[in-house]
């Protein structure tokens, strides 16, 4: 197991270095003067330019600059926002809970609906129900998030007026953030109706962000289930005269879950990509919206640092998934 872990880590480190090189080159490859881009100053005298250039270390050899950058990253220094002048890492942790909250809800939504849908489709293989579920999954999988989000807003919020349009909570409520999770903070605030409001605000973004993972999980569950159902031990269980519920629920599902867990883990990357669009549509103040806003503000330091942090996170999650998979299925370790 330790060898397996070290092996995975050995792959991860060069990958991370690769990503850091891309992030490092980002500002240097953009059109325009990197000194002006990083300092945010547009009008500069030559002396001032030289001064900032020196401060930022642009007058040193490129390799030294990169190593310096990497050393900063290792110590958690991802630069300072050009606009807010706050460290990128601090801003990231301020906004991250909002994204985690939304992503968790979306994953729960996708799992709770996706696994049963996949199981039912597998049992009823070839039936109309199967075709219906798989057809819907295909539509869900191909849904452009931006369009889907706006459609839901227009129909559910605009016409039916069932849910609020955007934001995390009604502006009537105003309390300090304790955990960063609105569902928890609204309960802690003790204000009547706050939790309800936070919950209502979560509904549409959860559906939008959860749609693609839902479709993927349903399809993966179905194919894993089909494979398991054709195994000998399932046939044996059936032959023993066990109920369908026992056969499917206890014997088959447990084994079918192994690839599904991997799939769920891999959805984290998809979620972060989806969060960029979902958060923008729903004015959800998380890291996805933060990245988009930073692009509009030309806050290159944030784009650079944010990308690296997100890439690092996705890699860590994938590592965790790999390890879990290794624990669940000893064969994979070799």
């Amino acid at each position, binding site marked *: 197991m330790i060898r397996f872990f070290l092996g995975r880590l050995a792959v991860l480190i060069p990958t991370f270095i690769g990503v850091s090189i891309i992030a490092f080159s980002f500002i240097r490859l953009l059109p*325009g003067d990197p000194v002006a881009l990083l300092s945010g100053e547009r009008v500069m005298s030559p002396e001032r330019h030289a001064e900032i250039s020196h401060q930022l270390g642009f007058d040193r050899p490129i390799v030294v600059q990169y190593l310096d950058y990497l050393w900063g990253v290792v110590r958690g220094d991802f630069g300072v926002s*050009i606009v*807010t002048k706050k460290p990128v890492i601090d801003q990231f942790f301020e906004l991250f809970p909002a994204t985690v909250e939304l992503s968790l809800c979306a994953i729960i939504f996708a799992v709770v609906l996706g696994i049963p849908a996949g199981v039912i489709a597998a049992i009823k293989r070839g039936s109309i129900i199967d075709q219906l579920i798989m057809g819907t999954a295909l539509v869900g999988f191909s849904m452009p998030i931006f369009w889907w989000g*706006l459609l839901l807003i*227009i129909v559910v919020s605009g016409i039916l007026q069932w849910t609020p*349009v955007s934001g995390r909570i009604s502006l009537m409520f*105003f309390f300090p953030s304790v955990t960063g999770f609105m569902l928890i903070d609204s309960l802690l605030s003790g204000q009547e109706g706050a939790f309800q409001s936070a919950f209502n605000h979560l509904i549409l973004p959860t559906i939008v962000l959860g749609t693609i993972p839902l479709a993927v999980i349903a399809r993966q569950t179905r194919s894993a289930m089909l494979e398991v159902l054709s195994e000998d031990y399932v046939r044996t269980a059936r032959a023993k005269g066990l109920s369908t519920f026992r056969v499917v629920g206890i014997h088959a599902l447990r084994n079918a879950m192994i690839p599904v867990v991997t799939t769920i883990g891999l959805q984290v990357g998809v979620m972060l990509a989806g969060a960029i669009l979902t958060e923008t549509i729903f*004015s959800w*103040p998380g890291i996805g919206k933060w990245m988009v806003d930073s692009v*509009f503000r030309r806050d290159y330091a944030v784009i650079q640092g944010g990308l690296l942090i997100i890439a690092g996170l996705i890699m860590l999650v994938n590592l965790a998934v790999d390890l879990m998979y290794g624990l669940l299925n000893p064969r994979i370790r070799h």
Partner: protein
Amino acid sequence: MKKLTTLFAATALATLMAGSAWSKTFVYCSEGSPEGFDPGLYTAGTTFDASAHTVYNRLLEFKKGTTETEAGLAESWTISDDGLEYTFKLRPGVKFQTTEFFTPTRDLNADDVIFSLERQWKSDHPWHGYVSGASWEYFSGMGMPDLIESLEKVDDMTVKIKLKRREAPFLANLAMPFASIMSKEYADKLEADGKMNQLNQMPLGTGPFAFVGYQQDAVIRYKAHPDYWAGKQKIDDLVFSITTDAAVRYQKLKAGECHLMPYPNAADVESMKADPELKVMEQAGLNVAYLAYNTTQAPFDKVEVRKALNKAINKQAIVDAVFQGQATPATNPIPPTMWSYNDNIEDDTYEPEVAKKMLEDAGVTDLSMKVWAMPVARPYMLNARRAAELIQADFAKIGVDVEIVSYEWAEYLERSKAKDRDGAVILGWTGDNGDPDNFLDTLLGCDAVGGNNRAQWCNQEFDDLVTKAKEASSVEERTKLYEEAQVVFKREAPWATLDHSLSIVPMRKNVEGFVQSPLGDFAFDGVDIVE
């Protein structure tokens, strides 16, 4: 005794109820996050709406709905005969806001005015570089560092500003967001506490609304300033709900989650007008979009060629296709809502046949040229690429071959300044201070060649007129000079003037007292919600 207690309880309850039932909250679905809250540091309208127009006042203010100035924190002012000395008498008894983070102990005085301007002017001022990367872009962009000779406190309530030369737009400049007056007392406290950065994060001024809090990219809260010198506002709380997508803003407006929104999608305006819950205000914006030829390069150095090309552009088609009618074709380089607009000038008519002949007469055949299209939507030009394609088709009809080019926005602005740049550039301008000088001299003056003057056009006759107008003392005299300058402009045709867009503001029916600003800013003093 029991009765008395009941009565007391009832009164207390009634007071409480009144407190909540009568608290009016106005929600503005703004289009983006402010860059900060010190208006001197930035140039974006979004930032000014969230800082200059809520928290702060200036010595002079623009009269609501116009580009004329009126008294603000300066009650009155006198200008010396040579036009170089401005003496401002401050309004007595102006209170700064009391907030959770600072309690002021004194009223506005001359120190505040000097502090607010001097920090932008003097590079050795302790506050000049308090935010790293601060460049006081507007202050220097308006030429203030070279214009001001001295700033002087005559007494507590009098400030004297001496200029190096006459400058007619100077008063209008002082009404601009960058000239917002801050509290020196607050700044001193922050400096003593070593928290100078806070000035840009937690603003405090004399304006109609006091800053309460900002949650990055989500919401800004203000409450009415109870001791505001012009009277307390009718709304108690003002909330900016930051909503970057125009379609979402519209849905929030429809659902009643906000009362007013800026910058609707052109395609939504018809349905907004049809909605009985909403009302829509519209007005010609203080802007212009243009196609600037490089007048220093052949064959665009010939006026006949520029004239011919102008006659080949079907402006109405551009307005229809790009704005779905929410703009008007432009004749002059300044918009019709601006004073001194010359109504007598006739626009080039769209006559491709005539244009073709003119081009032939000028000896230009087989012309192929570049048309630059901006990569971003601006209020004056929502889709430059579409406009460029229409121009391409128009020019093809007279035998001119067009290649459309584009760059990343910052790059586009930079490259289009170059004197030896090729072809013609689509660009535009939104006025900052309501003064014609801000268009005519800024965009077309000889000093602006290699900068804002994208046509690289230096015409002595035109330049003399606008320079004379800048130094003239009366508005009548200036009007006459600017009208003449527009005649020269039209005759020489350094640009094809394309359009002035309409500025459209949808809001809930129950919003009262909102006045559209020709300068494009959103200010909520005087706004009320009626039931």
